[in-house]
């Protein structure tokens, strides 16, 4: 029998509402709450052996501990599949489902199936992991979509139980994960591109192979009222670090940022700095690091009174193959640091 563990929150687990949102993960035998309906759909092909319940707030406030405890409980049952939710549009619950799926799938090497509304923040969290073993099924916003969600979750679970290969998101109906898999195409890229172009020109439908990321609009920050009183910070995605790469930046898919002292430097001298970045030839910046952090020019302008003062550290990270969400997170952390340090404006050099 194909063994399944189901993860759900305190509300769907029938323990209580917000007043019980603080409870830590606990294990129950068999199917609880909506998982009873899930078990009906699964029939004889898979059995929900146990359920793990966790309070929404406990998970949101103790993420690492909640994940560790959940994985520990799931491991006791040794299932072949984990299912979580459906979470609909509940943000904390959706996020918990995404995190549990990622943690269980990576630590136990089993597939995980969850379900939530496409705008649930858990979807972005799950997508950021690009985990081939985690499937997020789209649901309605509210619990009214329960029957449909359970049917789809069960259908996918049965196929996983049968050892079937699961195809691409657009064909199978789960949410795209941003994973590109190699496959053999009968036509060359040029032919396919031309077909798309012709379809577009004649207003016929076509499906792109490279979806365009959509970005939310950000209102520009207000300008600096008086440059001569402003503290300016330099930041760069060039991966320029002190020689020896003390914080061990990665040359690609880096997730670290740091700030390094500029006090006492009038120019970025060759031999004291190096660029760690897989996406461009760093030799030129190595010869003259001012190409990435234009300190010699900044000091000259600072001395002439063109602006108030230079913040005595520069911010650095490596942008090579950086996932947008990771880069955004680092920028948010940098902005907090800058604001608490009294920085007024930023010069950001990208390579």
């Amino acid at each position, binding site marked *: 029998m194909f063994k399944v563990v189901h993860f759900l929150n305190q509300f769907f687990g029938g323990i209580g509402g917000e007043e019980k949102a603080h409870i830590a993960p606990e294990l129950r035998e068999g199917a609880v709450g909506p998982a009873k309906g899930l078990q009906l759909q699964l029939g004889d092909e898979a059995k929900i052996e146990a359920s793990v319940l966790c309070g929404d707030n406990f998970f949101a406030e103790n993420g690492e501990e909640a994940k560790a405890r959940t994985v520990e409980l799931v491991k006791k049952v040794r299932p072949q599949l984990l299912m979580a939710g459906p979470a609909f549009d509940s943000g904390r619950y959706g996020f918990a489902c995404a995190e549990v799926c990622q943690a269980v799938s990576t630590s136990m090497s089993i597939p995980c199936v969850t379900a939530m509304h496409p705008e649930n923040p858990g979807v972005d969290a799950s997508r950021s992991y690009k985990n081939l073993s985690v499937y997020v099924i789209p649901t309605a916003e509210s619990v009214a979509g329960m029957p449909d969600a359970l049917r789809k979750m069960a259908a996918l679970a049965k196929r996983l139980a049968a050892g079937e290969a699961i195809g691409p998101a657009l064909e199978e109906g789960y949410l795209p994960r941003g994973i590109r898999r190699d496959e053999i195409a009968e036509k060359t890229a040029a032919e396919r591109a031309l077909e798309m172009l012709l379809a577009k020109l004649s207003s016929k439908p076509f499906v792109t192979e490279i979806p365009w990321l959509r970005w939310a609009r950000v209102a520009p920050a207000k300008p600096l009222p008086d440059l001569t009183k402003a503290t300016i910070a330099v930041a760069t995605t060039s991966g320029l670090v002190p020689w020896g790469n003390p914080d061990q930046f990665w040359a690609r898919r880096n997730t670290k940022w740091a700030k390094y002292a500029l006090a006492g430097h009038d120019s970025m001298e060759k031999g004291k700095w190096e660029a760690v970045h897989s996406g461009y030839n760093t030799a030129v910046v190595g010869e003259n690091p001012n*190409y990435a952090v234009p300190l010699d020019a900044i000091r000259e302008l600072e001395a002439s009174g063109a602006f108030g003062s230079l913040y005595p550290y520069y911010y650095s990270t490596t942008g090579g193959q950086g996932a947008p969400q990771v880069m955004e997170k680092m920028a948010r952390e940098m902005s907090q640091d800058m604001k608490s340090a009294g920085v007024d404006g930023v010069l950001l050099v990208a390579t």
Partner: protein
Amino acid sequence: MARELDRSGLPVALVTTMFPLAKQLGAARIVPARRITHPCGDPSLPEDADRAARKQIVTAALRALQTPVAEPTVFSADQE
């Protein structure tokens, strides 16, 4: 990153060679850089001219930081 810094209320001048892309992606204040491998300056120029080019880029960035903008705007260093 530029967008997130702007979102936090810090004006940012983004010095980038890929300025058409930066514009498309909604960075507010953009200063075109020289090349990917040497954004601020140009090693093919004599040392003085190289440094002057770098100063032009920084000057354009400072101008950008004190200019109100409503949408992605390119501030050319050639005007300095």
